[in-house]
């Protein structure tokens, strides 16, 4: 039986990559699978995808999906700079950055903040496990106060919450999810890709080897007990007919740049993802209650992305420009040099 094809006639296998070399049960592997599902269902053209990463367990994962796509596993904490440059060279690329909590919030915090500030058009996934896996279990800067290391050491420092930081800077798309929650994560990934601008997805992803025990706030059991979804998420790509099956009055539809829609079904209190100050307050309050709020925290589809701000051509990639476009004419060149006389 023929495999089911997506709207660009590719099967799910076209979105797979090399076999993972991460630990069995790693949250990152779940995220990889959700990425494959989202990219397949969206019908992303593999050759237009650029998979970017830094260093760490998380940053290995771009090798594990969409084998056909170009990928760039750079240096530690510097994925934002590489992504920014690549985006400028060819703004038709779909930039997908995968980073970790060490990569983003410690060594790469500066570049991360400036990427938010520039609103570079990319999806930025943090596979957040609160620990340094490849170097055998040191705390990262997202580890909560009181988290206990496998060998018993207790974290005494306040965590840096990448979502809170991004909200403060006005990141145009901020969401949080959990590696084990495909129902929520897949539509969020799709929406992040459809979003034109910086889309941050902080995905809590337990480290089964170093950080999945009772003392850890990034463990499977802790997240399952403390996860509070702010809404049920559904994503309708632009090429699908929009069929709203949610109860009127309890859903909100966010229109993305490409005409696709993100549907949010309210759970509990009214939550408006377009109110940044409210989002900051909610993240803070939930943290105080020991809860992890997941879902789309904030979105602003009106903010121009970096390439637009830079006014580089929308239809032609800078990398394709030639001598005719880029050099002064002979007459302009001569006249210009005369100015130095």
């Amino acid at each position, binding site marked *: 039986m023929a495999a089911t094809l997506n709207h660009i006639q590719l099967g799910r296998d*076209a979105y797979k990559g*090399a076999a993972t070399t991460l630990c069995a049960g790693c949250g990152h592997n779940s995220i990889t699978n959700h990425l494959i599902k989202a990219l397949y269902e969206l019908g992303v053209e*593999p*050759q*237009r995808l*650029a998979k*970017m990463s830094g260093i760490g367990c998380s940053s290995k994962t*771009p*090798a594990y999906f*969409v*084998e*056909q796509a*170009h*990928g*760039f*596993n*750079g*240096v530690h904490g*510097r994925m*934002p*700079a*590489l*992504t*920014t*440059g*690549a*985006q*400028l*060279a*060819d703004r*038709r*690329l779909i930039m997908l950055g995968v980073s970790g909590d060490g990569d983003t919030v410690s060594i790469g915090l*500066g*570049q991360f*903040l*400036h990427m938010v500030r520039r609103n570079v058009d990319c999806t930025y996934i943090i596979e957040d496990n609160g620990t340094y896996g490849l170097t055998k279990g040191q705390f990262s800067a997202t580890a909560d106060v009181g988290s206990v290391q496998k060998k018993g050491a207790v974290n005494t420092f306040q965590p840096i919450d990448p979502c809170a930081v991004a909200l403060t800077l006005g990141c145009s798309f901020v969401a949080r999810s959990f590696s084990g929650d495909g129902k929520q994560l897949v539509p969020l990934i799709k929406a992040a890709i459809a979003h034109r601008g910086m889309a941050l997805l902080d995905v809590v992803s337990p480290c089964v080897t170093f950080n999945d025990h009772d003392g850890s706030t990034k463990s499977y059991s802790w997240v399952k007990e403390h996860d509070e979804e702010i809404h049920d998420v559904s994503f309708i790509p632009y090429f699908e007919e929009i069929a709203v099956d949610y109860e009127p009055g309890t859903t909100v539809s966010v229109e993305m740049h490409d005409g696709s829609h993100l549907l949010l079904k309210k759970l509990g209190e009214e939550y408006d993802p377009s109110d940044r100050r409210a989002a900051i307050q909610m993240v803070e309050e939930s943290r105080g209650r020991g809860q992890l709020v997941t879902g789309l925290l904030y979105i602003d589809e009106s903010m121009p992305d970096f390439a637009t701000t*830079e*006014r*580089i*051509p*929308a239809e032609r990639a*800078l*990398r*394709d*420009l*030639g*001598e005719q476009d*880029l*050099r*002064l004419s*002979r007459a*302009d*060149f*001569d006249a*210009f*040099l*005369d*100015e*130095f*006389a």
Partner: protein
Amino acid sequence: MSNLKVNQLTFQAATVNGSGSQSANMVLTRAIFSMGIPVAPKNVFPSNIEGLPTWYQLRITPEGYMARKGDPDVLVALNPATWANDLKTVRPGGAVVHEEAYSTAEARDDVTYYPVPFSKLAKTRIQSDTLRKQLTNLIYVGVVAGLLGIPKDRLEHGVQRVFQTKPKAWQVNIDAVNVGYEYWEQNFKDKPCGFRLEPMTGKVDDLVLVEGNQAGALGALMGGVTVAAWYPITPSSSLCENLIAYTDRFRVDPKTGEHLISVVQAEDELAALGMAIGAGWAGARAMTSTSGPGISLMAEFSGLAYYAEIPVVIWDIQRVGPSTGLPTRTMQGDVSFAYSLSHGDTRHIVLLPGNVEECYEFGRLAFDLADRFQTPVFVLSDLDLGMNLWMTRKFAYPEAGFDRGKVVTAERIEELKGDWGRYRDVDGDGIPWRTLPNTDHPLAGYFTRGSGHDENARYTESAETYARNVDRLARKLEGARPVLPQPVAEEPGSEVGIIAFGSSEAAVAEARVLLAETGLRTDYLRLRALPMSKAVTEFVARHERVYVVEQNRDGQVYDLIRLELSPDHVGRLRSIRNYDGQPLPAEAITRPLKELEAVPA
């Protein structure tokens, strides 16, 4: 006067940083240059916005020497803090124009004084309160013009040239110059100074005055740069600032307002090079520009680009290190560091422009070389070359198109039936083929990484594959030797040779004339790139004694050349080093060279 010196003097203005003396100095320079007289300006400025001493030196010779000549013949002293010292530096027989209020109690009697009540004149003759401080400097231009015989119409030309884009500023500046000129007429007309400027023809007629950082920016523009990321740092900032100014004029579509370039001020030098590498990876012609401290930060990304084979151009406008060093002084101190920047066995292509024309040429060529060899290309200029004005003939319009190197297209992948690999050495030159992201073929993609990889860009920790890969990289760089800019040599046939590079060019040219006048003829080779051409070792082989001239303490290029020599030639190499942060003068070569010549081989 019997020994009147015509068109042969060094002028120096000693002022306070931030007082606006730069435009006055430029007016003077432009006025003299427009008389057909060669000029060689040097700015000696502090790392400071306002208040510290600054000096502007203008050397004038009929021959057109462009190296610095230590002490001044004509001094304008407008800085009370340095007055006593400035006075000591004037050559005997010199002229000293100074603020009348300065004490001449300990004055020398071998110079002529021209006291001018600058403050008083400014107060009474300059109406604008806001411009008074700045225009005071123009008064000394008038006095000096009187002393040296610069015609009034040349002064007006100087003002108009400096304030090219601000015609409204012309009259007020010309008026201020005239205040000084009148003061000279009334007080010093009968007190000649022993130096005179007279119009010349045939020496500078087709020349222009350009800073290296202007030339480099123009070179980048003509080389097709489309992504430039940078972080402000003296003395490199003006390169990217010039690039911005030029692109605003030449890279904006007048109809759509679209920019055919993105120049990004990054958050630091790490990000600056990272962005350039990201863009180079995605197929753009990308560059960054920095100085020593930035080069230190760029070590990590340089290694990535070398190992992952990504084209990128890195300008280093060298300044005095180590660390923050002397941020506004010049040095050739980064050569060996840049050549092997990053950990492991890293090796880079380094271009060494020796004049502003080569800043332009190499600024353009660097992109072709980066694409051709798929590797970072460093262009090492320095503060002297980058930030001072230099006389140069006009640059040539490039006849050749871009060399984009080995790029595999979707069609080519079809022809190869998909049988291609990112790091395969199919041509035997060590240079692999690459696809660009967004190539419309299912087999175009590959995974770029700074970790171990095989011929098909797959992760590996295999010992054999690692060694094979880095051996290929070494072979690739070896292949660059004959392709990079070859040394320029002048060999009239002496047994004594000089090797130099970069901004030392001007001082070597003059030193060779001075040495020849004392009967010591020299051959000369100017190194223009690393890894160095075989022509360098061959030059050493042809000479008994070879002096390597460079502006650093440790003889970095002297060491690099010795490594290339056969053991029996190593002893022929001698080292001349200058590292005081000042642009190299000819006597810093002639003096040690003559001393060393007295030492038996």
